[in-house]
């Protein structure tokens, strides 16, 4: 591509990773970092074995256990569920056989793959990063091109360190101005999905831009990029800047000294050039975003916390009316009901969307000096062993425990209904995770997505609540 043509952040990273372009325009794209976990890899390693292939670059691969494990103290006594145990043991055997670096379950650095990648300094700006998990988009917050792949593609990357890909289209989502009090990165991304819809970003890579995005810390940028896939985009990214560099330079496995300086010099060339073309542009005013909560069974079913459950009969066509009636029935809602009147049974603070130290601080700030409402089960699941240790050093675990929250071990936990942390049918959950699909947190479970501060407020109130009504008590 000519040096004259203005390029986007995505274009630049893409161009820098094309090994070859096939006659039909498909690119052989080089992958810098391949993150792996126990659920989406067994069949891939098996495929390699059957074909007599090896892992091309084990050192560009990192494996961790996160999805299929308990987050209570039972993990220290071994995995009870036989199928889960086999899956975990299979990964342990595979990483040994193929020489892949691995963080074992009881290592203090263990955690959710999308938390530990940036935390350890493995995910860096300018990289291409993949993982057999749709929330790989999280790492785009580093200024990387990061996206989820299926197990066949996992096998392809293990064998060749490349993927066959068609270039995506460019989409820019700008959030301009300042965020209002009580609002966070989660409210931004829920508002974006509410605006563009769950398929709004299909076929595109989203670059998140604008003052409100620039003002976010790295944890906030990760929350926003994490949910790109909920807007249909396989990848979301934020241009690397001083906030990014300050974060990277404190990470244990990140480059140091002269190597880091040289890297930063390159990373500074990555932001989108003025005048670069975007196929789609969406703009939001940050000050118009209120604390958000989902009411339905798709992340696009989102409203300000001050809202009421919508009326299906007001929808434009019968197909949509029928769809909404089904959502209402599943969620146990009636039109016109105030969202703040919805009583919750469970509160979950965790997941690759919201389990970083900043998220736990936000929940603890609301919990401090208050009590979880009678009959509500509230749990906080740190994203990694390092996040857990940091929170304990800051005394956040005590604040949360005194308020009646469970303080647990790191893992994906109640985000996906795969491990022992699940909802039972009919339970209503205020959750900081990313998907409110039917049955996502357990069959019949009812999920309302919101921010960590909003989740803590719901735990205290016993129903969905407006965090703006909760002034922090004292300093956290």
């Amino acid at each position, binding site marked *: 591509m000519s040096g004259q043509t203005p390029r986007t952040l995505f274009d630049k990273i893409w161009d820098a990773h094309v*090994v070859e372009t*096939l006659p*039909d325009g498909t690119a*052989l794209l*080089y992958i*810098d*970092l391949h993150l792996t976990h126990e659920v989406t890899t*067994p*069949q891939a390693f*098996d495929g390699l074995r059957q*074909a007599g*292939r090896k892992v*091309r670059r084990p*050192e*560009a691969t990192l494996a961790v256990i996160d*999805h*299929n494990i308990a987050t209570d103290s039972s993990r220290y006594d071994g995995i009870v*569920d036989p*199928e*889960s145990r086999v*899956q975990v043991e*299979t990964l342990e055997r595979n990483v040994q056989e193929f020489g892949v670096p691995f963080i074992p379950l009881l290592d203090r650095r263990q955690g959710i793959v999308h938390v530990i990648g940036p935390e350890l300094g*493995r995910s860096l700006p300018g*990289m291409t990063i993949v993982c057999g*998990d*749709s929330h*790989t988009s999280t790492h785009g917050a580093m200024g990387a091109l990061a996206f*989820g*792949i*299926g197990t*066949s*593609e996992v*096998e*392809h990357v293990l*064998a*060749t*360190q*490349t993927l066959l890909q068609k270039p995506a289209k460019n989409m820019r989502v700008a959030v301009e101005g300042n965020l209002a009090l009580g609002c966070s990165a989660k409210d931004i991304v829920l508002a974006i999905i509410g605006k563009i819809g769950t*398929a709004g970003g*299909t*076929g595109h890579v989203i670059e998140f831009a604008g003052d409100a995005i620039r003002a976010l810390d790295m944890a906030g940028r990760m929350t926003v990029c994490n949910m790109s*896939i909920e807007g*249909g985009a*396989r990848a979301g990214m934020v241009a690397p800047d001083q906030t990014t560099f300050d974060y990277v330079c404190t990470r244990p496995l990140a*480059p140091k000294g002269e190597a*880091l300086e040289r*890297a930063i010099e*390159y990373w500074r060339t990555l932001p989108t050039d003025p005048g670069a073309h975007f196929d789609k542009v969406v703009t939001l005013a940050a000050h118009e975003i209120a604390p958000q909560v989902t009411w339905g069974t*798709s992340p696009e079913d989102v409203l300000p916390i001050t809202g009421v459950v919508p009326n299906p009969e007001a929808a434009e066509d019968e*197909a949509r009316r029928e*769809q909404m009636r089904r959502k209402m029935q599943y969620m146990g809602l009636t039109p016109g009901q105030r969202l703040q009147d919805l009583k919750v049974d469970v509160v979950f603070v965790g997941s690759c969307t919201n389990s970083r130290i900043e998220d736990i601080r936000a929940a603890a700030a609301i919990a401090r000096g208050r009590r979880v409402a009678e009959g509500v089960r509230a749990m906080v699941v740190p994203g990694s062993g390092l996040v857990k240790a940091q929170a304990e050093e800051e005394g956040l675990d005590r604040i949360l425990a005194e308020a009646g929250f469970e303080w647990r071990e790191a893992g994906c936990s109640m985000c996906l*209904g795969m491990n022992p942390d*699940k909802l039972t*049918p009919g339970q209503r959950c205020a959750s900081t995770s990313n*998907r409110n*699909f*039917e*049955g*996502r947190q357990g*069959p019949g479970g009812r999920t309302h997505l919101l921010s960590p501060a909003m989740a803590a407020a719901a735990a205290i109130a016993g129903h969905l609540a407006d965090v703006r009504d909760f002034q922090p008590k004292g300093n956290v």
Partner: protein
Amino acid sequence: MQAFTTLTGIAAPLPKANVDTDQIIPARFLKSISRTGFGKNLFANFRYREDGSENPDFVLNQEPYRKAEILIAFENFGCGSSREHAPWALLDFGIRCVIAPDFADIFHNNSFKNGVLPVRLPREICEQLMEDARMGGNARITVDLEREVVVRPNGEEIPFRIDPLRRHLLLNGLDDIGQTMQHAPAIDAFEAKRKAAQPWLAGG
């Protein structure tokens, strides 16, 4: 991978948009380390009641759709999780083709890798095919990848388009890893260049 050339079979109507991969195969069934055996849990939350018995209202529990080989659905099919267990579950049940107005990107990719053909057709056409599918066993639909047409029970042919490379791989049942490995010299050269230009990446 099994090649996909032409398929004539029963089509099951699933008139829903945003069918996510958690619906196709809930996470609690992802513990297997094999690629097969997921068919019995395809759409488990709809197919079975809480006590484990079959829900007779769900289309795949009704005749003749227990033998469906084609699924007709609406927009954004396969959204959500990247789990390849979704096409594995469809395939294991016997469904080799999904027809919908559009598909989520990762599911779309994953399907091709497993010999499951996702066919994009406009909403109005999907609505017509949905009606055809509702006619049951007397209304077989043909999906011809060679000619890139869907043939309705009344004989009407509806053209569709598939990316040429993907069509080639699917028609011949080819594993793309083998193809990519033929580019090994180019990958070697790329890695050498990258190591020189971005030495901070060399170790990892």
